[in-house]
């Protein structure tokens, strides 16, 4: 009766006097060291958005350099001091900007900010639990993430600037402090921050998994879970299995940097001076990194997929098409994502034989992705579509995922990757699929669950403005990059002035930069909308989107323990929208079939023969009565 006693104790106690308990909760325990999953979700979200905006500003800074490589901007010197002497960002700092931009966006925005927010908010609410399995570790998870963010940003304060070896920190570049300024303290901080981050995501991950496994409410079997939960669950598993490998890689890197070992280093002469390293292999690091790195990119997209599926079903008032297929494709992606990492290393010196193998596995991943894409389209087909901002962003996510995914097919082909690797084609690919699709998934989630998080509604019109500017902006930014890539323009280049063949892209670069600035400005609409709605937004009703999932059965006013009384029991899958014969066009999961006799279908009772019997009896009696009349 033990631990559950502990953890149930908390719940019981909230049932009894949770309500009056609220106002005499101290500020610290309510807002700062909160153990309530809803508050932690908000903390993750707000930190995530802050990081996102910072990383976005970084991207604008280096875009300015790419657009006006010759111009000087005294303002930059004022802002960046020694990093931008006489009005121009220095070459090394450009790389720092890119590196930190990438790192923050991938890990801090789209891993912590996305999974962290929505796993914390939705898992307990949608599976019907009082809170996370371990609220305490949940809190720790956030605070580790917060620390990691602080450390990462603090690296802008060190003399030689932040890490600048690219977010993939390939050694030897990242291992030799003398190789470039950013590989000094900057890289050290990067590594420290990363270790904390992994700790955070690990604590989060095992929490999510055990919550989904153990704490589903009565009737919530796996095939009644919303796709968001499926996605977040599998994402958590990916994290648990992938991040530790990065830890191993990072540990070895730290030793190479600070303890004179040579795991990744061999035969190095750094500007004329022999280094005492021998026997290591840089490729080893690349394997360890990408064993995480590739699952990571699916960690980034899968929650977005789940969120979009949910939102598209709700707003086209139509069950998600092929629910089972959607789940199986998610599982397929999860499994496959562990055996394709080599596609980042086709031309890095990996054994060509492996290149061939990885190319096969990589292209297979397109199949589950295809299933998802087509099922989304089928969900819209003959729907009754409501264009809430959330819906628009979900659709944007699909559009971007198709575009970006298809470019992935080029890269996945080892033969083509020879000429595309590390060009702007790759940059275009991953921005479409991650910088746009995944971000849009996150934004969709924010718009959709804002009422649940803050009990207020966001302004729709501003939402529309935000969507169209960002959507068009992102396409304008990233579409042309493909063609730069096809012209062999390499990424991580400080300026395209030194190669005659690249100079003709300058106009395009200027255009891209201004498009980016526009898209960035559009985020102001979002931020204003977000913040103002928290305070002056109009009050939300309990179920503003007329959705079926459990979270909308909780009161608008948050209370620790989520449901005032008993946790509701679940009777049906979450996608009974526009069911023929039902009076409403949605039937929440908590409505028993006996209350919807007119709309029940045989298909609802696949795993309940008795129920099916009853249904048939009921229908036959109906017929009989009609004949009587």
């Amino acid at each position, binding site marked *: 009766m033990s631990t559950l006693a502990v953890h149930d104790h908390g719940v019981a106690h909230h049932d009894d006097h949770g309500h009056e308990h609220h106002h005499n909760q101290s500020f610290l325990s309510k807002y700062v060291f909160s153990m309530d999953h809803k508050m932690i979700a908000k903390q993750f979200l707000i930190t995530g958005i802050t990081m996102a905006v910072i990383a976005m500003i970084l991207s604008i800074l280096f875009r300015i350099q790419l657009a006006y490589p010759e111009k000087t901007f*005294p*303002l930059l*010197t*004022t802002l960046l001091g020694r990093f931008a*002497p006489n*009005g121009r960002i220095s*070459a090394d700092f450009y*790389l720092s900007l890119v590196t930190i931009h990438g790192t923050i966006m991938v890990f801090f925005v789209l891993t912590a900010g996305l999974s962290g927010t929505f796993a914390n908010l939705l898992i307990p609410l949608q599976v019907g639990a009082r809170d996370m399995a371990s609220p305490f570790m949940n809190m720790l998870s956030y605070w580790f993430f917060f620390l990691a963010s602080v450390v990462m940003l603090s690296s802008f304060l060190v003399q030689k600037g932040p890490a600048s070896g*690219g977010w993939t920190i390939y050694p*030897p*570049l990242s291992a*030799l402090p003398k190789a*470039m300024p950013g590989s000094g303290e900057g890289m050290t901080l990067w590594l420290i921050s990363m270790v904390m981050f992994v700790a955070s995501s690990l604590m989060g991950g095992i929490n999510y998994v055990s919550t989904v496994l153990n704490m589903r409410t009565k009737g919530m079997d796996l095939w009644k879970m919303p796709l968001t939960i499926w996605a977040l669950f599998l994402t958590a598993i990916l994290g648990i299995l992938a991040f530790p490998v990065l830890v191993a890689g990072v540990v070895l890197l730290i030793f190479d940097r600070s303890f004179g070992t040579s795991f990744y280093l061999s035969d190095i*002469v750094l*500007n004329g001076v*022999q280094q005492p390293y021998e026997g*290591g292999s*840089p*490729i080893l690091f690349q394997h360890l990194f990408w064993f995480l790195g590739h699952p990571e990119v699916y960690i980034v997209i899968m929650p977005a997929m789940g969120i979009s599926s949910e939102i598209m079903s709700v707003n086209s*008032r*139509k*069950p998600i*098409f*092929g629910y089972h*297929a959607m789940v199986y494709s998610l599982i397929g992606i999860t499994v496959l994502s562990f055996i394709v990492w080599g596609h980042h290393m086709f*031309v890095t*010196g990996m054994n060509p034989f492996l*290149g*061939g193998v990885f*190319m096969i596995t990589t292209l297979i991943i*397109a199949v589950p992705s295809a299933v998802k894409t087509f099922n989304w389209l089928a969900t*819209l*087909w003959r729907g*009754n*579509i409501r*264009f809430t901002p959330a819906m628009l962003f979900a*659709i944007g996510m699909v*559009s971007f995922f198709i*575009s970006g995914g*298809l470019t992935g097919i*080029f890269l996945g*082909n*080892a*033969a083509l990757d*020879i*000429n595309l690797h*590390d060009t702007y084609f790759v940059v275009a690919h991953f921005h479409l699929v991650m910088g746009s699709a995944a971000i849009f998934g996150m934004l969709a989630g924010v718009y959709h669950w804002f009422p649940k998080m803050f009990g207020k509604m966001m302004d729709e019109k501003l939402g529309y403005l935000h969507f*169209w500017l960002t959507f068009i902006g992102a396409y304008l930014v990233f579409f*042309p990059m493909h*063609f730069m890539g*096809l012209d*062999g323009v*390499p990424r991580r280049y*400080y300026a395209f002035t*030194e190669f005659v063949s690249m100079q*003709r*892209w300058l106009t395009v670069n200027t255009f891209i930069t201004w498009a980016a600035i526009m898209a960035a400005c559009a985020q102001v609409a979002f931020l204003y909308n977000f913040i103002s709605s928290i305070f002056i937004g109009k009050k939300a009703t309990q179920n503003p989107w007329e959705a079926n999932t459990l979270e909308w059965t909780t009161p608008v006013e948050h209370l620790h323990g989520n449901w005032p009384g008993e946790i509701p029991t679940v009777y049906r899958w979450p996608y009974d*929208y*526009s069911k023929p014969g039902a009076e409403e066009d949605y039937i929440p999961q908590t409505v028993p079939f006996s209350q919807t006799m007119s709309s029940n279908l045989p*298909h609802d009772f696949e795993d309940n023969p008795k129920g099916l019997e009853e249904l048939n009896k009921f229908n036959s009696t109906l017929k009989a009565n009609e004949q009587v009349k």
Partner: protein
Amino acid sequence: MLLGTNLLMAQTEATANTGGQPDAPQVDWTGVAYYLLLFFLVCLGVAVIGKILKIYDLTLKIQGKKGMKWNTVMAVVCLVFLIAGLYGAYWSFTVQGSMTLPEAASVHGVKIDEMFTVTTVLTMIVFFVTQILLFGFLFQYRHSDKRRAHFLPHNNTIEKIWTIAPAIVLTILVVFGFFTWQKIMDNTDAKGEPASINVDITGHQFAWELRYPGKDGKLGPKDFRLVTAANKLGVNFKKRSSFDDLQVDTMYLPVNKSVRLNIQALDVIHSVYMPHFRVQLNAVPGLPTFFKFTPTITTAQMRTQLDDPKFEYLVYCNKICGGGHYNMQKVVRVVTEAEYQAWLSRQKPYLSDALRKELHFAAADQPKKESQNRLALNN
């Protein structure tokens, strides 16, 4: 004296508005203010429009009408976006698409380009179809109170179809790609075919070093411990094969001859990237890699093709390697066999006089012979 104070003032002024960066140029704040103002004006405009819309909405409602149908508006915008987008994509393909690399200048490059065309065709079909369906549906099935959505949870046959269809397409791509890849990466000299020319290319921050074999056609072994100012690559001169090696500063390649690039790096990872030949492989310190290819178009021919008299093939560095990464190039000239031989005979041996001194070779008889045939080479 006066002058002095002036200077001083200038100083303080400078530091005042450049955050302690004496030598930094003046910020022209008016410019900044201008942009900020512009931005605020835009925001203001947006706000005003928003208000107007709200009021218009209200008036409509007051008149008992249904108010603005934002849903329909959005649906229409989706349609507009679809059309505009399709045109944009088309424009981008034609205009920017025409700015991409010229035809492949190597044997395997042609294969890669075929691969690329096939992939492009297949994926672009998918691209246009799916995007049209996506936005088409949005407009077609926009909300209306009269209709109810069509309850359709699943349909196994169609799901099977669109699982298998992509699977087939991808199998085609995989098989085609797999064999292309195998062919390209197959690095054993085919029987009968003359051994390919060995070219040694070594990357370091931030330049490429080239080394060609001499008469013996063999490159001498290297060891990073032997690197010195004069012996940049650490060539080992205990071995005879090293003596006639040549140091060159432009990569000359005979057309239609198989070339084997031996790729190395001294400090960090670099990447030998020759887009025109569709050649790329990383240069990894401690792990010599190589890439075999056959150039097919001479620089001269390419110049006429692109009617750009200044055109040059280039080696880029395509793996982040530090501050100079963006400017680490080497010129490649593809020439006829004759030109190549002529050029080759003009090249200086790697074993420079400075290096001889360093190695105290003056005494040894070996180098004497060396120097003679070097003279021979020179005239």
